[in-house]
């Protein structure tokens, strides 16, 4: 990635802007802000009960690597009996309280609202870009809207899910790894042109 990002400190998010050939934006990426995030883990032996209970309460949980969205929430399976719950327009504390009231003693909750950076990647060349680091088959026949995966991209652990058939993908990356992730993303998308937003001016 030598020259392209030579000026960007490795400790900073790649600043917003356009990278790659002038006037091309085969890929768009933006930081998604303002989401509260929690891990929800079923207590021993309670995964099925929990899923049933929350589904009944309008919060769909699938015990599989799937992302399901309702108006207010997205639930993402990250392991057996474990989910990430994302909520818009809420604080982490409020999300925990809300989920706690739904789950009762069937689950434990941990606030992760500050632990991650969420980046949405879209555009006609999104798949070709992601192929440069994601070792999961993203062909529509294998991975479609609503599918999720926890994996490693360019030495950075990620959880991502396809949020739209367009396609649009959302990547959740641990905060301290976010600069490295964005370096990879920007460099990989540069040949197609990438418009990056929401990461600050640098």
């Amino acid at each position, binding site marked *: *990635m030598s020259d392209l990002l030579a000026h960007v400190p*490795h400790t900073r998010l790649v600043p917003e802007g356009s990278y790659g050939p002038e006037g091309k934006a085969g890929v768009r990426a933006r930081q998604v802000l303002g989401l509260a995030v929690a891990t929800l883990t079923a*207590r021993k032996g309670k995964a099925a009960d929990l899923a049933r209970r929350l589904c009944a309460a309008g919060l769909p949980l699938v015990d599989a690597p799937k992302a399901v969205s309702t108006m207010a929430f997205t639930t993402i399976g990250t392991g057996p009996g474990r989910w990430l719950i994302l909520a818009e327009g809420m604080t982490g504390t409020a999300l925990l309280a809300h989920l706690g009231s739904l789950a009762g003693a069937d689950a*434990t909750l941990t606030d992760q609202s*500050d632990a991650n950076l969420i980046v949405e990647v879209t555009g006609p060349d999104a798949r070709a870009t992601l192929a440069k680091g994601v070792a999961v088959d993203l062909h529509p026949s294998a991975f479609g809207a609503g599918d999720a995966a926890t994996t490693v991209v360019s030495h950075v652990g990620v959880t991502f899910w396809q949020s739209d058939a367009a396609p649009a993908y959302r990547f959740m990356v641990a905060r301290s790894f976010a600069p490295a992730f964005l*370096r990879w993303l920007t460099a990989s998308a540069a040949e197609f042109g990438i418009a990056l937003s929401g990461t600050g001016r640098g």
Partner: protein
Amino acid sequence: MTRLSTGGLIDRSRTLSFTFDGVAYTGHPGDTLASALLANGVRLVGRSFKYHRPRGIFTCGSEEPNALVELRTGARKEPNTRATTVELFDGLVAQSQNRWPSLEHDALSVNQWLTPFLGAGFYYKTFMWPASFWEKVYEPTIRRAAGLGAASELVDPDTYEKAFAFCDVLVIGSGATGLAAALAAARSGARVILADEDFRLGGRLLTENVAIDGAPARDFVARAEAELSSLPNVRLMPRTTVFGAYDGSEYACVERVSDHVAVPAAFQPRQRLWRIIAKRAILATGAFDRPIVFPGNDRPGVMTAQALATYAQRFGVGAGANAAVFTNNDAGVAAALAAANAGLTLEAVIDVRDALPSPLAAKAKALGVRVITGGEVIATKGKRLSAITVRTKSGTQTLAVEALGISGGATPNLNLTCHLGGKPVYREDIAAFVPGAVPPGMSCAGAVAGQFSLSDCLNAGTEQGAAAAADAGFARAAAPAPKAEETPTGIRAFWQVKAKGDLAFVDLQNDVSAKDVGIAHKEGFRAVELLKRYTTMGMATDQGKNSNMAGLALMAELTGQGIAATGTTVFRPPYTPVALGVLAGHHREKDFRPTRPTPTHAWAEGQGAVFVETGFWLRAAYFPKPGEKDWLESVNREVKATRESVGVIDVSTFGKIDLQGPDVGTFLDRVYINMFSTLQVGKARYGVMLREDGLVMDDGTTARLADTHYVMTTTTANAGKVFQHLEFCLQVLWPELDVQLASISEQWAQIAVSGPRSREVLAKLVDGHDVSNAGLPFMGVAQTTVLGGIEARIFRLSFSGELGYEIAVPARQGERLMETIMEAGRPFGITPYGTETLGVLRIEKGHVSGSELNGQTTARDLGLGRMASTKKDYIGRVLSQRPAFQDPARPIFVGFKPVDKAQRLRAGAHLLTVGAQATTHNDEGYVTSVAYSPTLGHFIGLGFLKRGLERIGEQVRAYDPVRGSDILVEVCSPAFVDPEGEKQRV
């Protein structure tokens, strides 16, 4: 100039300029460097490895052993580049290599006259007398002569990428077979990738004078390519070499994105590494023409018949003004005729067989080509080939030719079938090894499978393409295989011309001759693998593609064992040499591994911090102030400020684990040596964890936030390891426990405020929580809010030994918290400090850290043995009681101070009893951590000393010869400052 007047898949309307050894030439788009050199009449292009014999272009593909050049210049110089695979571009610069002072007059070609001495194994038998000459004379000389091209020694300026692809069917090779396979698979709807190392699809179809479906083969290629590119389920990957087969149906490939241009276009890598995961793979990699061993078979101008034909047909180039072909098989004759057909002046076809099959004989006759049957080439002449001597039953004759095509038969290009351990199998009928066991999911079709006739190739490709798609779950498409006329494929096995004279080469690049095979045989190196290693046959950059068959056939003849029993050596990845840079992708220089900034990184930068790598993290090491002359001065200031007033440091890098559930207490009791189930809510406790082998794994504090809710901290270095260990315990050892884990390392920023004034600082931050000694006692934990509503966890802990707090807030608030702390602390002269000061503070206190928790120490060694509970079992308890770990003579944790306080102590010094000799036997321990203690005004150290606790007050030697230091130190308690721990409890 030997460019033929017409023909070739080159664009004659455009001219490209290039230089070779400084001389300017021109060629056309579609040329390779090799074809362009030949077109310009350049035939001498290199020197051989050992004897420095003149060498030319031997093949037309990636198996080239001779025509290796240094391509490009400066930092982009690429040594050992095969001229036969370099696509010509405007401005290309190439140099010959392994010669001095020039290619034409190479000084080391004197080695040719030493050939009587320089046989196989020569090195092992000599250079031993006198012994001291080896280092001084022989070895440097040998090393200087070794190698082929020279590296630039400059940083590679280009970039590389990695990528993954998934498909139903991967077709490797785009000759007749591969195209047919790809079409059949693609038409059924399967996701197909067709990869070919060449820049043009078509394989041998670009060379052969054959018809498919009634039209010239090249039309078939064009039609196939058009159809395949129109299909959305097909990805065509020209310029892509599949170089390795790996487990899980994974194929490693390198795509040469920009090697055909002078400099990669903006935002384009030079090359891309692909890892293709294919449900099925079809190997359609064809076969190579192999050489025949005869005296002088290495002269520039001698090449494979396939190459001769390819230069003529595909590139419109005559490899010489005129040529002959020497062969033992029908394809060799066909190649000769194809070359003649393209306009090459063909003087004769010499075939060892007594007659040609009639269709070929007729074709030759029609073209007016002279055929010498029952003939053998027994000698060649010229620094560049000028003549060959042909022997027949009726005598010898000399033919003046500039090029000689040789074909000893086809060697299936089965390299990739061997990568998972498959062993090729010999077939007498075609005198060739064909694939044996193949990697799971792979099948072989066409010439690589020993199917040498074009119609067989097309049929096999079509059949297997359809079958592969069907295996992957797609309905077979009904399209028939393309039709071609039968091509003759007869051969008479023939390996070596028995004739005296010049050296007859087996391995052209490594200068292994038939004679060397004889020496290996005499000395007992008869197994092929020993033959290879003793003579270096097959170890050159072509990996024996040209040489192995002949070499083992010669050995088989000497042993009388037969070729099948002799076997062949193993092919290993890569199929052809791969640039090292592409295997690294962009993970180089600073992007080698991620850099993890702490939540307050930007703030620390603003404070002028100097940073240090700790694992992937970048942490502030110290905060120099203007006028300070070195780091020590800054650190001394930071230490003093913290001990006397208040200091602040970001400790977010510690691992933090959230543990919830009714069984957490029980669980922690089992993983820590001390008790945690008894810990009160709102309290924290220091804990030590062992590995099952009884040695210390990690330490840290764990707090109880609620009855069923704990939060654990681990060391920065072991965060991942501890989490994994806890998951193992829960999922494997004790699945009955109801405990849920979550890593919260990234969620919380944690900032330590230490020093006598820290409480006053804290009081200004909290939203009304009582932080008095009673309200938040030592080891107490408060869950509250700070800075007007920010959720916070405050732990009253002390690594520094001072009154201290660690304040955790959600990570996004970390920087704000730090700024507010600085503001609140300003009246006290609050001082930010880094890892250096952290180290000094803890060494002064005698707290263990990474250097002591080195995986070789027990809790007892560390002076923490008393923490171990005797009331319960825990991981590591049983094995920690092994005799060696209970040995009273084991080095144990103590402190050291220099007897002469002005002296500097260093970590890594070993400890010796005064007066004892400096030997391993007398080694009594070592110093692990050292600091200059501004509090005490001298250096202090921690470490392990045999029977250390009994020796407090004794003087020992701290022996550090690697740094030229050897000083007396006094053994003391590791707690240098406030040994009773009063300061942290105030």
